[in-house]
């Protein structure tokens, strides 16, 4: 079962990028406090993203003809791994680099590719993904935001998206929208449209989360007019395009490293106080991280072969987010099991931030239950 999902090495030429990206990160974010770094891919800093673009660390999987580096998924894995493990603020380019640009490369027109991809590779165009709606969470095929053809050949959009990461900072949204039929038609009649978020009729309201951050937003469309070049790929085939796109979103190492900074900070604490009573726990977490990393590289290898590893990505994401969520739980217990031991306030803040935000890890990009349904389908059970 899933016979091609096997150990794969990181090619040496891609591993060779590591010292360069690491030096860049150390130079750019030295002194950033731990709890801020713990935001990892929610941390937003457009200047950092543009600097990455200038140094050639964006567009690693994209063709040189569109401003990319043409290095492939393994190079991207190394760069992304270093960014995440350091807690660099990558949100300004994350979605565009990871999924919007590959989507446009696969399904976009030549005009769309030329218009967006080079700017994404420079870290200059910020994208968000409009999927969830108030009535459509896991049941994505039930989206109700509609686009009608205008007499001029463009589109008129009405509806609402919610929980859209970084919408308030973004230039464009690629939205899953109903262009024909009704909700009863399920995934038929859905299309992907590029929406200029500065267009008249677009209203964006940030939503504050339980940590005090506002990383997602609700977005309203009231008679938003789009040109005929807004459609990505074929009308009515938005669903299959989204499925392919989600494999990019779910397979990356961001699904294993969200709490890695906390793990390292805790290990430093344990070493500093000279304790060894938690060695077995640290060993278990280390083995789990190593195995997840190997699984994520194995998934990357399928991407590198040009496949869309939907099931593999779901396996990595479900197991990876389980690990990310377990870390604050067991670390909190270990620290509070030693009430007479001083804990650095920054470690405490980081621990608490991750404790509070970690339920979202298994929601964003597909819930645990949806992912397990995808795996079950891959097993021939559905």
């Amino acid at each position, binding site marked *: *079962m*899933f016979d091609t*999902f*096997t*150990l794969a090495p990181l090619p040496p030429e891609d591993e060779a990028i590591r010292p360069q990206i690491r030096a860049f990160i150390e130079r750019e974010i030295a002194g950033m406090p731990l709890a801020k770094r713990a935001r990892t891919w929610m941390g937003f800093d457009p200047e950092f993203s543009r600097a990455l673009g200038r140094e050639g660390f964006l567009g690693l999987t994209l063709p040189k003809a569109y401003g990319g580096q043409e290095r492939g998924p393994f190079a991207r894995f190394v760069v992304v*791994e270093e960014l995440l*493990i350091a807690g660099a603020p990558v949100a300004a380019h994350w979605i565009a680099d990871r999924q919007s640009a590959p989507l446009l490369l696969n399904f976009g027109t030549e005009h769309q590719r030329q218009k967006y991809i080079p700017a994404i590779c420079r870290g200059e165009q910020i994208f968000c993904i409009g999927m969830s709606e108030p009535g459509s969470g896991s049941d994505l095929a039930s989206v109700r935001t509609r686009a009608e053809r205008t007499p001029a050949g463009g589109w008129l959009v009405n509806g609402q998206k919610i929980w859209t990461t970084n919408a308030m900072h973004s230039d464009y949204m690629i939205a899953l929208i109903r262009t024909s039929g009704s909700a009863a038609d399920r995934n038929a009649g859905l299309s992907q449209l590029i929406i200029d978020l500065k267009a008249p009729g677009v209203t964006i309201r940030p939503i504050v989360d339980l940590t005090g951050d506002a990383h997602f937003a609700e977005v309203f469309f009231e008679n938003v007019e789009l040109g005929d070049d807004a459609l990505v790929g074929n009308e009515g085939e938005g669903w299959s395009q989204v499925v392919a796109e989600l494999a990019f979103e779910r397979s990356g190492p961001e699904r294993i490293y969200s709490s*890695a900074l906390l*793990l*390292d900070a805790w*290990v*430093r604490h*344990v*070493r500093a106080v000279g304790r*060894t009573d*938690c*060695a*077995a*726990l*640290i*060993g*278990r977490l*280390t*083995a*789990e*991280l*190593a*195995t*997840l*990393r*190997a*699984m994520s590289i*194995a998934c990357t290898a399928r991407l590198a072969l040009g496949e869309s590893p939907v099931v593999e990505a779901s*396996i990595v994401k*479900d*197991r990876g987010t389980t690990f990310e969520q377990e870390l604050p739980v067991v670390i909190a217990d270990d620290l509070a099991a030693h009430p007479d031991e001083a804990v650095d306030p920054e470690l405490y803040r980081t621990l608490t931030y991750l404790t509070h935000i970690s339920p979202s890890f298994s929601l964003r990009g597909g819930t645990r*239950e949806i*992912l*397990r*349904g995808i*795996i*079950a389908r*891959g*097993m*021939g*059970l*559905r």
Partner: protein
Amino acid sequence: MNELLEPFVRMLENIAAPAAVRAVEQGGSADAMWAEIASSGFLDALVSEEQGGAGLSLAEVEQLFGALGAHAVPLPVGETMIARALLAQAGVAAPDGPIALATSALSGQVVPCGLVADHVLLDRGDALTLVAVADLQIAPLGIHGALAARISWGNAPSGAVLPRPANGLRPVAAALRAALIAGCAGQLCTMTSNYANERVQFGKPIGRQQALQQNLAVMAEDMIAARIAAQLGCAGGLDISLAAAATAKATTSGIVPRFAATAHAVHGAIGVAEEYDLQLLTRRLHEWRLADGSEGYWNELLGAKRLESDASTLDWVRAEVFA
């Protein structure tokens, strides 16, 4: 299946069908089965080509270990492959029969396949000794179907002495167990999802129930984690690092309780019936989980090593596990 694995699996299907496994477990002779394996040449897979072997790496042979686990082979085939490679490296002629691995210096330890071995390669702490079973006390465990034995000795057992690997015999034995668990888990995953598709309750196959689908998906995740951890453990060759062995064995042993429980839960009562093949696999999963150090042993060892270093977790696993 590749050209190394395909003939090996074909052989196992011929000689180690469930009925043949049961016959050996019930005390029948394994001589014919062993003769087939020995004549296949696979036992010298890890011996260098100069010494007449196939010169394969541990990474290449890992898939063969997995196939042994998937077929519940009732002989120490993987153990013998490893022992023959170590014997060849030391210039000691290998005996013809099956060789079990005893990775503790403790007299009275439990050794998998101890009842069906001719020799035991014993880690004495300072050297390895190849001891004929006639020179040891081999006691059955008194557990239905078990081929593991309690192995004891009075005076220091004698036999050919060979150099001990830097970290002893346990890491490579643990990597073998990890691969056996991974292969066995793969077989169980297929068997269990097939059963869920066939068994009808409430008017439809039980595999159509979301509750079962969620559990089976977790089973698949555990299976993949075990597979990749075992491959990671075997990637570095016979002279395996402690951290790689620990990652492989801790991860694979760690999945066993939940994995075996789900396989049985999905099958219902038939799964614990002797005549049904599920138990041939799940009993072995539990045995291999404990053999050569459980997850608790390897987690503790891995954690203690990790705590010696001030590197980040990523850098540490890159250097110690992925090297």
